[in-house]
């Protein structure tokens, strides 16, 4: 096996121009590390997020807990809202499109959003196929519940992976499950002898080159963030301690009693996750967190993490 100098230099992409696009996109994901990406539904929320120290904002029509409550089809954010948010802040603006909905993705690329989240939080547009993300110049982030799913998305061109967790619940248990699962699978892959990797790839349902890369480097070839159910500074510290390189917070901020304070507190907790004294300081006086839903009591039909293939 050739020695790999840098697991994140997109060397697995053969076409040079495509490789450079992927590298610069992984590079932006690296710049967001250690930060908090906050869901926002309008310019005012975007400004609050930026002032609280968000590293990027995610534009969407409704936060996940409202999507759960109100039901109906959840789609890409209206174009005017994306533009209004882009005008309002200087930090990167991300936006969600439906799984497989490459036309929504083209619209978002045309709007020059900085990252597209092909997200299970929205209603899927395709029952079997994800977007061919290598056909785009704009970077994509995708959710994953396990290593095979992460590697399929990276194979399709995702420049960042996030756990799915269970969005809109304020329940961290699924996010923790996905983070631990991915970490455990990476760890065990590094101990697999090279001649067994093809069969492992077959059984996982993941691209061989990606499996080989993870086995030799012991890490994902793109940054790995946590999302889904993060509602408190302690939740952010927990997922950071479990290896998440950054944190997405959805309903947890603007559905809390004190959005601005909660946003600031989660930003500091994400940086100082190892320092219990700072975690005490930031956890004080926040009022109540979002109410939340127990995912254990949730019927399978309401689980968003099962969306995606």
């Amino acid at each position, binding site marked *: 096996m*050739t*020695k*790999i*100098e*840098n697991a994140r*230099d997109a*060397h*697995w992409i*053969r076409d040079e121009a495509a490789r*450079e696009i992927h*590298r*610069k*996109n992984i*590079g*932006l994901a*690296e*710049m*967001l*590390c*250690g*930060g908090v990406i906050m869901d926002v539904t309008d310019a005012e929320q975007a400004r609050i997020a*930026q*002032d*609280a*120290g*968000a*590293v*990027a904002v995610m534009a969407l029509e409704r936060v996940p807990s409202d999507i759960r409550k109100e039901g109906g089809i959840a789609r890409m954010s209206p174009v005017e809202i994306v533009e209004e948010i882009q005008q309002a802040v*200087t*930090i*990167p603006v991300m936006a969600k499109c439906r799984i497989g909905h490459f036309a929504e993705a083209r619209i978002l*690329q045309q709007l*020059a*959003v*900085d*990252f597209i989240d092909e997200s299970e939080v929205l209603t899927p547009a395709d029952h079997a196929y994800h977007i061919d993300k290598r056909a785009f*110049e*704009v*970077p994509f982030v995708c959710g994953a519940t396990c290593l095979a799913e992460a590697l399929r998305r990276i194979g399709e061109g995702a420049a960042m992976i996030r756990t799915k967790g269970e969005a809109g619940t304020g329940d961290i248990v699924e996010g923790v499950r996905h983070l631990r699962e991915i970490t455990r699978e990476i760890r065990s892959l590094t101990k697999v002898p090279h001649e067994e990797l093809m069969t492992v790839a077959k059984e996982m349902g993941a691209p061989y080159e990606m499996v080989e890369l993870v086995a030799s480097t012991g890490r994902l070839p793109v940054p790995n963030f946590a999302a889904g159910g993060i509602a408190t500074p302690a939740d952010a510290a927990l997922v950071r301690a479990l290896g998440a*390189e950054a944190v997405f917070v959805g309903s947890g901020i603007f559905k809390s009693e004190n959005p601005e304070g909660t946003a*600031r507190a989660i*930003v*500091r907790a*994400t*940086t*100082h996750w190892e*320092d219990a004294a700072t975690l005490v300081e930031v956890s004080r006086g926040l009022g109540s967190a979002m109410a939340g839903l127990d995912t254990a009591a949730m019927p399978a039909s309401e689980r968003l993490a099962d969306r995606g293939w």
Partner: protein
Amino acid sequence: MTSPPEESNSSAQPPAGGGAPGGVVGVLALQGAVAPHLAALAELGVDPVEVRTTEALAAVDRLVIPGGESTTLDHLLRTEGLREPLRQRALDRSLALFGTCAGAILLGRDREDERPRRLGVVDVTVDRNAYGRQMDSFIGPIEAEGALGAEPLEGVFIRAPRFRDAGEGIEVLARRGGEAVALRQARTILCTFHPELSSDRRLHRLFLDL
């Protein structure tokens, strides 16, 4: 077939001892591309520390301010009470600094017209996000000069800033199309691109020699 990964600096000679050739080296670890800088410094035989508190800042002799979001970094520098001590130590030259991208923005000349507020350590105006959004980010060759030698470098420009109106006595280390993209003034190096995401370690080595 794919070509093997590029050989990177296999001839590099790490400073002896693996410890502290130029004192304690830190990377500001509030947010951003911290891990790639730690890895780049480790390649040069340095064992860097992560700096998140005033105590940690007081203990380092050299500090990398990495890329990330300048607005977020500025917010956290203030929240953690790091902004003033950092500025003081930069101005009295007891701290060697290497600012990449967002780090370069923060260390530039102070200005009223654009957030975030700068630290005013280097006499150059740095325009934030001056090439456009992520779609306008790019990777391309840049020309090295002066202390960096003659070999071209790879420049990874991500939502990158641009320098203008550099003051007297600022040494240009690299240009792209005639425009300066890496600078040195006294004990501070600034660059608008991301050397930590490439395999060339000349800028990190120069930083260790400041």
